């Protein structure tokens, strides 16, 4: 009797674990099936080469490039902000800061990632854009610059916390050897500790990029809703995620091409983040083996 009970419990626990596999299969199937229907009506070559995205207008074009450029532009701006700041914070906290300071500051910084993203959207639109407009006269009310900047602030803790963990895990003997040779903390940090923790740092950067590409509400609020193939950070653009929100808010008929565009856009987004996540997982696994 007891054995049967144990077995039943084990199997039901297994079932719960299998739900995670079902989620992945569900995501892939849903995106693939709807995207398949989409591509039976829209040429896949147009999708990747047309430079206009206007599925909601009378003159319909289905080129993903403007959405992709919007996504990459805002993500690039975000990483340009978060990478130098996040990495400096991680090196400072791990190599220079007193223990207590580190203990207080790290969770405080992680609050940056706990703030709901719609709140950051408010901040970008109502505070940062008007401020930047005083410095850059031609800046549009919706633009990728302030959306990207605020997104950068949001992802700082992704880089600073994970990198700091990696730096902190470097054995002290390496540092002591370097100090013994007469190196300063700075030299030790950049020539010994950072290279030793490089894989962890790279993982943190990849995760931050993946987070930026998938971020929705900041760009939906502050970057505008105009798909535009441009690298100009001062004009309105639209990202893949913002487009999906725009369609979801409107009244689009289920089963129409317009409805399917959000899945075609979604699968593009999914492929990007999937590749980045897989890459970071691989690096993390390799790095664990090296230290254990």
């Amino acid at each position: 009797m007891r054995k049967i009970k144990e077995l039943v419990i084990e199997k039901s626990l297994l079932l719960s674990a299998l739900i995670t596999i079902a989620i992945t299969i569900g995501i892939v199937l849903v995106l693939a099936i709807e995207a398949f229907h989409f591509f039976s009506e829209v040429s896949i070559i147009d999708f990747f080469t047309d430079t206009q995205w206007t599925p909601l207008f009378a003159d319909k074009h289905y080129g993903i490039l403007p959405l992709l450029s919007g996504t990459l532009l805002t993500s690039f701006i975000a990483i340009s902000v978060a990478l130098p700041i996040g990495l400096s914070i991680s090196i400072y906290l791990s190599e220079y800061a007193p223990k207590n300071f580190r203990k207080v500051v790290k969770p405080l910084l992680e609050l940056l990632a706990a703030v709901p993203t719609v709140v950051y959207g408010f901040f970008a639109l109502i505070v940062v854009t008007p401020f930047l407009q005083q410095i850059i006269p031609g800046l549009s009310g919706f633009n990728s610059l302030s959306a990207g900047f605020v997104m950068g602030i949001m992802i700082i803790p992704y880089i600073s916390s994970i990198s700091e963990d990696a730096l902190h895990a470097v054995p002290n003997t390496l540092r002591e050897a370097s100090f013994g040779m007469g190196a300063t903390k700075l030299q030790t940090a950049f020539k010994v500790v950072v290279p030793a923790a490089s894989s962890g740092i790279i993982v943190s950067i990849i995760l931050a990029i993946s987070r930026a590409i998938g971020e929705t509400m900041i760009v939906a609020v502050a970057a505008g809703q105009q798909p535009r193939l441009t690298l100009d950070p001062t004009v309105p653009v639209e990202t893949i995620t913002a487009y999906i929100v725009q369609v979801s808010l409107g009244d689009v008929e289920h089963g129409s091409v317009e409805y399917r565009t959000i899945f075609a856009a979604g699968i593009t987004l999914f492929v990007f983040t999937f590749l980045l996540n897989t890459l970071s997982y691989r690096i993390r696994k390799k790095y664990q083996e090296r230290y254990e």
Partner: protein
Amino acid sequence: MNSIQKNRLKDQLFKVWGIGCTLFGLILLAVFIGDILIDGIMRIDWKFIIDLPSRKPEKAGIYTALMGSIWILLLTTVIAFPVGVAAGVYLEEYGKKNKFSAILEINISNLAGVPSIIYGLLGLEVFVRIMSLGASVLAGSLTLSLLILPIIIVATREAIKAVPKTVKDASFALGASKWQTIWNQVLPASSGGILTGVILALSRAVGETAPLIVVGALAYVPFAPESPMDEFSVLPIQIFNWISRPQHGFIENAAAAIIILLLITFVMNGIAVYFRNKWQKKLK
């Protein structure tokens, strides 16, 4: 200046730069909360909380959105908590180190990195259309449950990992079965860590906007939901809706609603940190 002095100077300069960067993040957070407080704090009163949405900013309140958020929070907890903890227990205690568990692990790590809006697309197709739940509280909660499942699973595993092996050995030595050991020893000993993870995951769910918009949650709902099958709005969507409007009064409303949302998020994070600290002390 010789090279030693130069290197020392560089060292000092980097230290200043590092403090600057650290403070930059914290100061921005402070400026930003300060700004929202200035914009919105005067707007908050009891009427704002119990008023229904309205076209006129000075009459509009957050009642339906707040109730929607509470509904979503409760249902998501009921769905995601047992499933997530069960999956975590399986992976940590039963999952043998074989290819299958390696696949499960890669899969969960990947799911944690899937953008939230993609979960929205999944929920739209599976819960709203195929299971024909419509744009209901239940469909929204199921979608968010899938979204936070990886977070709960990872937290459960970490918490179980932290339980000393001696606890388990002692239980087995007394003749307890595997499940008895897990239920009576491992889960109580890891409960603090699991609770921390679950609360953090739920605080993420409260702030989620995009997947619920995709699932079809509305910006304007005249009544608070009364059953899991009712239409709903949530605080973040109400905020998004108010931000998108040109009248200044709505910006003030948005700021006021943000204060309430941040209060909920920060309190949940605070509780999580409290549980973690208490639990870590107990483990030692």
